[in-house]
């Protein structure tokens, strides 16, 4: 709580100084909102009383607070729109709510951002679609069995990257036609063309399930979906 108070004061002072110098205040605005959100979350979870006086900084009054909030909100709106999360997580306040109170969704958002930033997933894939496909795999595949009797228990981050890798041509960056996820689901649940387990370099085992136009790999020991790639039909 004291740390958050110090951070709030620090970024308020930074905002005032940058504003007075006519410099960019966006970082101070964003970091101030993050510190305030951490404080709000801490207080709501501990039941402690907020001491607003301890969060004050000289020169940072009501008008600076309004400007700072608007600036942070605008930055969030631009970012969330760029990744396609603006329809699901509409405001910065909602974003912080997800961050502190919806851990699985926040983890998914972080994973999505890492996949795009690493270049393993096209920025053409928006977060709303990513989240929808993750949900579909969880509801339509997890719990189902392969024809060899392996129960699917989950999906690796890489698997979802590859699902989208089969949907967007890496050369043209344009979406390919076809409902790839339906093909994957059908492959995993109905195909009898299943390889013997292969041993990976890291010691894990993997089986490959083949169907027309697609290959899907599953760890037979954990039931985790690991890999998929398109094939010629």
């Amino acid at each position, binding site marked *: 709580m004291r740390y958050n108070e110090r951070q709030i004061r620090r970024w308020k002072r930074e905002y005032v100084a940058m504003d007075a110098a006519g410099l960019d205040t966006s970082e101070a605005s964003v970091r101030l909102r993050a510190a305030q959100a951490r404080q709000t979350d801490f207080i709501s979870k501990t039941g402690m009383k907020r001491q607003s006086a301890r969060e004050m900084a000289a020169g940072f009054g009501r008008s600076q607070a309004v400007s700072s909030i608007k600036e942070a909100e605008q930055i969030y709106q631009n970012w969330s729109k760029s990744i396609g999360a603006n329809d699901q997580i509409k405001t910065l306040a909602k974003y912080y709510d997800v961050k502190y109170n919806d851990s699985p969704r926040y983890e998914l958002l972080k994973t999505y951002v890492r996949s795009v930033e690493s270049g393993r997933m096209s920025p053409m894939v928006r977060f709303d679609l990513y989240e929808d496909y993750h949900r579909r795999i969880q509801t339509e595949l997890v719990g189902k069995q392969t024809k060899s009797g392996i129960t699917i228990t989950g999906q690796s*981050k890489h698997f979802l990257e590859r699902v989208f890798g089969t949907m967007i041509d890496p050369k043209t960056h344009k979406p390919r036609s076809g409902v790839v996820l339906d093909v994957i689901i059908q492959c995993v649940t109905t195909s009898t063309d299943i390889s013997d387990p292969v041993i*990976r370099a890291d010691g894990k085992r993997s089986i490959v399930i083949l169907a027309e136009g697609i290959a899907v790999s599953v760890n037979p020991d954990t039931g985790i979906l690991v890999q998929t790639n398109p*094939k010629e039909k």
Partner: protein
Amino acid sequence: MLNMTDKSRRFLEKRLPDVVMAEKVNDILDPLYMLIEVEGFDENDDYNAFGDEAQEVYDDVYYSNVR
């Protein structure tokens, strides 16, 4: 002969020489998939550097020949 970049061809000549002259796309994609499966992952089920390189070749062979 199937379409692919010189870089992909060099990769296949080095790692899967038996399939470089294949005439069917899946005759390259199937062994390449298994090669990625065996050598292309780290302990977190992410691609390692070899996996990234091999997937690039896979994408090139697939998208250059299948539409």
